[in-house]
C-alpha cells in the first residue's frame, strides 16, 4: 500500500505537465463557446424563422449526440473530404488542437445557449410589462431588464456547464493531445499502475472543480447583493 501512495504522489508532476493544455482548452473553448452561445441565443429568440430554425437545429444536434462522436467526426471524419483538405480550414483542422477547440466550442455553445435561454425565460413577465408601460423599447427592455436578471438566474447552471467543459477536455486525449489525461495515459503505459496514476489525476480534477465552483459562488454572491431574504 505504501508503494501505491508513493506512486500516486510521483505521478503528479508528470500529469501536471498537461495542466497547461487542459487549461488552455478550457479557457479558449469556454470563451469562444460563450460568444457562440450568445449569438445563437439571440438568433433563437429573435422571432425570425430564418434565424430560429438554424439555431434550434444546431442546438438539437450538439446536445443530442455524444461529444466523443463530435470530436471524432471533426478530427477523423473531416479529413475524408478532399475539399476540406485543400481549403484554408485545413490549417485549423489538420491539428488535433484545432479540432479539439472546435469540437468543444461547438458543444458547449449549444448547452450554454439553452442555459441562457432558461435565464431569459425566467425573468418575471411583470417586470417586462412594467418596462413596456413606462415606454421602454424592446431593445431597452432586453438590455436593462432581461439581461441582468437572466445572467444572475443562469449562473448556477452555467457554472455546471463550465465544469462539464473541463471534464470534456479529457476526451481530447483520445485524439493524441497531451493534456493531463494524455500524460496520465503515458505514465500508465510506463508503470502499468493504472489505479494509482488515474487516482492522482482524479484528485487534480477535483481540485480544479472545487476552484471553479468557489469562483462562481463568489460571482453569484456579488450578482445577488440586491436580494435579501
Amino acid at each position: 500500500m505504501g508503494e501505491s501512495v508513493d506512486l500516486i504522489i510521483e505521478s503528479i508532476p508528470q500529469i501536471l505537465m498537461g495542466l497547461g493544455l487542459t487549461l488552455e482548452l478550457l479557457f479558449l473553448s469556454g470563451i469562444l463557446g460563450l460568444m457562440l452561445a450568445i449569438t445563437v441565443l439571440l438568433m433563437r429568440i429573435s422571432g425570425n424563422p430564418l434565424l430560429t430554425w438554424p439555431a434550434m437545429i444546431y442546438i438539437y444536434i450538439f446536445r443530442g449526440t455524444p461529444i466523443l462522436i463530435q470530436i471524432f467526426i471533426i478530427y477523423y471524419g473531416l479529413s475524408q473530404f478532399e475539399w476540406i483538405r485543400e481549403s484554408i480550414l485545413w490549417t485549423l483542422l489538420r491539428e488535433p488542437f484545432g479540432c479539439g477547440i472546435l469540437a468543444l466550442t461547438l458543444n458547449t455553445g449549444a448547452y450554454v445557449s439553452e442555459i441562457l435561454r432558461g435565464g431569459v425565460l425566467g425573468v418575471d413577465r411583470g417586470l417586462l410589462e412594467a418596462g413596456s408601460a413606462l415606454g421602454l423599447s424592446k431593445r431597452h427592455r432586453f438590455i436593462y431588464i432581461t439581461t441582468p436578471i437572466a445572467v444572475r438566474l443562469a449562473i448556477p447552471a452555467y457554472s455546471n456547464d463550465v465544469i462539464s467543459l473541463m471534464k470534456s477536455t479529457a476526451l481530447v486525449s483520445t485524439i493524441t493531445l497531451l493534456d493531463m489525461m494524455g500524460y496520465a495515459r503515458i505514465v500508465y503505459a510506463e508503470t502499468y499502475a493504472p489505479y494509482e496514476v488515474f487516482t492522482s489525476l482524479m484528485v487534480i480534477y477535483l481540485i480544479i472543480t472545487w476552484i471553479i465552483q468557489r469562483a462562481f459562488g463568489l460571482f453569484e454572491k456579488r450578482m445577488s447583493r440586491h436580494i435579501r431574504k
Partner: protein
Amino acid sequence: MSDSEPVIILKEVDKFFGDFQALSKINLIVNKGERIVVCGPSGSGKSTMIRCINRLEQHNAGQIIVGGHELTDQVKDIDAVRREVGMVFQSFNLFPHLTIIDNLMLAPRLVRKTPKPEAREKAMSMLERVRIPEQAEKYPSQLSGGQQQRVAIARALCMNPEIMLFDEPTSALDPEMINEVLDVMTDLAKEGMTMICVTHEMGFARSVADAVVFMDEGEIVERNKPEEFFNNPQHERTKLFLSQILAH
C-alpha cells in the same frame, strides 16, 4: 371640477383570448381630471380592459383613443399612448436589480433622454411626494409591500403621465399597509390626475371617485356616481355583487 374633454375613449371594444370573450362591446368615455373606479367579480374583464388601454393587451375589435391618439398596431402610436399613460400593477413589478432611485430614473433617461442630474432631481421629488425619500439608495427587496407600491407609483409619475391606471394596487398588500397607498392615490386625485382604478376598496371609491363602473362577464353593466351606485344600484347583477362584497 373636471373639464369635459374626453381623454380616453373606448368604442365597441371586444377582446378574445382564443375562444373566450374577455371584453364585449365596451363603451367608455373618461374625461380629463375624472377619477373612475372599476369593480366587479373575478374574471369580469376589469384588468383586461385597462391593460388594453396601454396596449399590454391587444383589443380585437373597436377603437381605443387615448389623449387624441388612436391605438393601433403601429409602434409609434403605441409609444405615443404609453407616454400619456402611467400604470401601477398589483405585484408592484419594481426592477429588483436596481436601487429605488435607479428604478425611477431608468425610463426618463432612456425614453425621454433626460440627463442624469435632472432625472435624479425629479426622482427625489417624486419620492418625497410618496413620502419615502430616505429609501432612495435601497433595493426593492429591503422595502415593505406598501413602500414598494408607493415607489411604483412614483416611478410611473416620473414619466409625467396625463393619466394613471391602477390595476388592483392594494390587493397584494397586508391590510395594515393598504392605507398608506390609498392616501397617496387620494393625494394624486386631489391634485387633478385623471385616473382609472380597478380595486375592491369601496371606501376609496366612495370618497375619491367621480364615477364607479361595474363590470361583469366582459361587459360594463352599470356606471354611476358613487352615492347612486352604492345606495341605488340599478341592475340585478350589481345588487348581487354589492351584497356579496359588502356583507361583512
